[in-house]
């Protein structure tokens, strides 16, 4: 037995108490024809052997590369105190605070998370967490439909392509419509959401719009005209949803300042390791009037019968366990531990540290831009950016692969993530954060110059790394 306590004598004692010979009698209620075939799995593995296996698998991943990859997940410095606190069993082995009297730690931590994010986004209501930025964005879209009684949302093509895909799954599922807002192909506004197109889409009275969704910064790293997009949305009676990157909110205008009704986004950057996609932290926030439309748990401050300050899950009548088929969403399990990670990270850094993280990332990105410009590789878009931008490289996919052989992860091959954006074929999306080093930037520029100078790079696929039978 790996973790169980029962000795043969314990089992015998329990069976005797039940008046049974064998544990098989407890499964006599499974009809004979439905009983399982034997499990065909490997034998149990002792911990020492298991750890060797896992170390071997982890070692097959290449995480030592000079990485310029962002595209929705960002590497940041995480003070050791964050993970040390997360490893306390009182946090990670508790469950949903159904008994508030013995869950005040979790409840207060969620309330503090709600408060911290409310400060960052400038909106008063923050859900206790959603699965990830994409799911939060999809829930935001459904919120706009419930709140307005309309059935169509508009989403910018400069929103993360995977968020748009998830949005489509959710919106289709609910029997609603989603239409894309194109991006401007060329000129000073290239890469930004096309506001003239948005205006035309909003003017279609046969399909009234519930919500308009833009990301700030956009998937391509650009700073979008959020205030103007919000005005257009509101002018048409629609709600405005901002998809945000929380670290950037240390220095960029928050959604509450430019009139967004809902903010959604990925909280991974707040101290959560990339870990190949999750668990992450879906941020969802809204204005006070929308509080009954927001899905997911909410924790509020209250008092106990003796008047002591205390915290409790509240407004639960929105949720599935009470409202069942009429619930705002089916969400139940959320990402509480990741919300705690975000709170810990923000507490460790404080407002100055957060500002420095954002500003240092911007500085590193400028350094990257300059280093690439020096070898003749320029940004694709003229607009302002914070710490991520697209570059045009001939044969981007092949160059990317060749750089990988040289120890550089040259960002994202845009055409692979967004095959339906021909104006950005042959582009790489690169990013820098405060953990990007000058050495890595110099190395990237040097290797890229080398690959480009050597003409058409090798188009043969390199041998797969680390694969054995």
């Amino acid at each position, binding site marked *: 037995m*790996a973790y169980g306590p029962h000795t043969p004598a314990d089992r015998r004692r329990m069976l005797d108490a039940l008046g049974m010979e064998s544990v098989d009698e407890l499964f006599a209620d499974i009809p004979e024809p439905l009983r399982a075939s034997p499990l065909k799995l490997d034998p149990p593995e002792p911990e020492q052997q298991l750890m060797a296996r896992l170390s071997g698998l982890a070692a097959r991943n290449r995480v030592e590369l000079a990485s310029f990859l962002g595209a929705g997940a960002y590497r940041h410095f995480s003070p050791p105190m964050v993970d040390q606190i997360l490893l306390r069993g009182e946090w990670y082995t508790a469950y949903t605070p159904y008994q508030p009297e013995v869950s005040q730690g979790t409840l207060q931590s969620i309330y503090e998370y709600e408060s911290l994010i409310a400060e960052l986004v400038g909106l008063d209501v923050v859900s206790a967490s959603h699965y990830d930025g994409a799911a939060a964005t999809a829930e935001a879209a459904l919120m706009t439909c419930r709140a307005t009684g309309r059935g169509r949302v508009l989403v910018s093509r400069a929103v993360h392509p995977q968020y748009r895909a998830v949005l489509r799954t959710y919106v289709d599922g609910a029997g609603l419509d989603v239409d894309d807002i194109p991006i401007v192909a060329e000129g000073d506004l290239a890469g930004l959401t096309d506001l003239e197109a948005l205006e035309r889409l909003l003017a279609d009275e046969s399909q009234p719009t519930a919500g308009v969704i833009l990301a700030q910064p956009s998937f391509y790293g650009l700073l979008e005209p959020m205030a103007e997009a919000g005005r257009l949305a509101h002018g048409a009676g629609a709600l405005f949803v901002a998809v945000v990157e929380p670290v950037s909110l240390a220095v960029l205008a928050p959604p509450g300042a430019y009139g967004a009704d809902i903010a959604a986004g990925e909280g991974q950057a707040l101290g959560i390791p990339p870990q190949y996609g999750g668990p992450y932290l879906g941020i969802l926030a809204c204005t006070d009037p929308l509080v009954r439309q927001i899905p997911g748990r909410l*924790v509020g401050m209250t008092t106990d019968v003796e008047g002591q300050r205390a915290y409790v899950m509240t407004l639960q009548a929105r949720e599935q366990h009470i409202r*069942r088929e009429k619930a705002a969403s089916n*969400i139940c399990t959320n990402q509480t531990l990741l919300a705690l990670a975000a709170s810990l990270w923000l507490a460790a850094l404080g407002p100055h540290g957060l500002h420095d993280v954002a500003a240092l990332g911007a500085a590193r990105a400028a350094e990257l831009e300059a280093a690439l410009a020096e070898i003749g590789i320029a940004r694709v878009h003229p607009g302002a950016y914070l710490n991520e931008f697209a570059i045009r490289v001939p044969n981007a996919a092949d160059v990317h692969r060749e750089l990988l052989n040289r120890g550089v992860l040259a960002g994202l091959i845009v055409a692979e993530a967004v095959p339906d954006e021909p104006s950005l074929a042959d582009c790489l999306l690169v990013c820098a954060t405060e953990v990007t080093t000058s050495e890595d930037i110099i190395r990237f520029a040097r290797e890229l110059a080398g690959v480009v100078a050597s003409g058409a790079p090798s188009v043969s696929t390199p041998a797969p790394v680390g694969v054995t039978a």
Partner: protein
Amino acid sequence: MSASGPRLQPSLFELSRAGRHSDKVPHPPKAALDRIPADQRRERPPALPEVNEPDAVRHFVNLSQLNHAVDTGFYPLGSCTMKWNPKVNEWAARLPGFAQLHPMAPDDVAQGTLQLLWELEQILIEVSGMQAVTLQPAAGAHGELTGILMIRAYHEGRGDTGRTDVLVPDSAHGTNPATATMAGLRTISIKAAPDGGLDLDGFRAALGPTTAAVMVTNPSTLGLFESRIGELLEAVHEAGALAYMDGANLNAILGRFKPGEAGFDVMHINTHKTFSTPHGGGGPGAGPVAVNDKLLPFLPAPRVIREPDGHFRLERVGERPASIGRMRSFVGSTGVLVRAYAYLRTHGASGLAEITDDAVLAANYLKDRLADSGVFDIPFPGVCKHEFIASASSIKKKTGVRTLDIAKRLLDHGFHAPTVYFPLTVDEAMLIEPTETESVETLDAFADALIEIAREAESDPETVKTAPHTAPVKRLDEAGAARNPNLRWRPALGDWTPCPD
């Protein structure tokens, strides 16, 4: 209570003092943000708390001590499977090779994780008796939505467009009907038979050409194996509908019942219940979904593919047009899945069978101890699976003490309460799930505590009705919290001290 706590804590914001901090990152150059247009800049910095590391650490350590957790005591929360969370799992997920891998990294860079995910899929296929698994869903309810959307796509793919109903027993988790709504379908609730099991006649009467799916939790939320499930599955398929199994209670049937073999078309698995990934105070979880060949083409994208040469890769965007699309960003909650993989490897075939045997044995032992006491009602006295229902209905009639009061009084005994008032179909319900990792001594102590509280309800009902008495706080004003919601701290607009650099 330990000498250091539990103590209520001021809010993190109240600890804040202007200018207090611990240096963590280098200062940026002064001009770093000059290139950002003024109208895009934040006018006023966010009023986040300014604390130093010792203050922050003490705050969160002291807060943690206000929690009950599996690491601190018995947690018999029915339908949640609060089993031991192995420590090696936490070690595994933190290996830099797993933790630092970027989700958009090229396949060549991610072979270790891709192999792990692929192997995990194979193990879950074997456990479920299905044909394929997606690891993408982030939680059980997310898995439900994935499954029901696939069922919808299946019917639509056959041109069978009139199927709008999902049949759900009235004892189901609230997520089932809420999922049907999110998938654009209508829920039809079917009352249970008098023995608590599925009412075949009720289902047969509701099944028809408009039925898209039947969602069944097996064992049910009453802790009972649905012995009529074979007949129901036949009737479902005869009506042209598909059968979804809510796998919340998989801990009761490992190695004993494979839903795919029995005829279910799709199920979700809660790794945070059956496969020991920690509940994290409410999440994260993971909700892999297993399907048979009917639904395989519709699985969310991307899937993990193993090439004939042993190389692993993710499906490319648009590679499988029949897919229902994406359910979330990236490939899934990989950090959770690493933990589940470690657990499954630790146990292997014999260990998984033992988990179920011990979980069911413990539940029946505890149920019989409470039944023998004669003070609690046991509405379904036969053999249960991994959990069972006790009810305080008689106690309430006799003493006025309700299930809620008993739950609160258990906290004074150092136990977490069971799930209460669920399922909604049983009066004054307590759903008790001991799991396989609690010793017989703990089970006895818990039974003794419940029996003692029942006696106390007669001798001193006030003490029970006002419990808990030793928890960090007393009962809360939940009505006040909902009538005038206070959902965030409002920091005073303090002095912003510019960064010294």
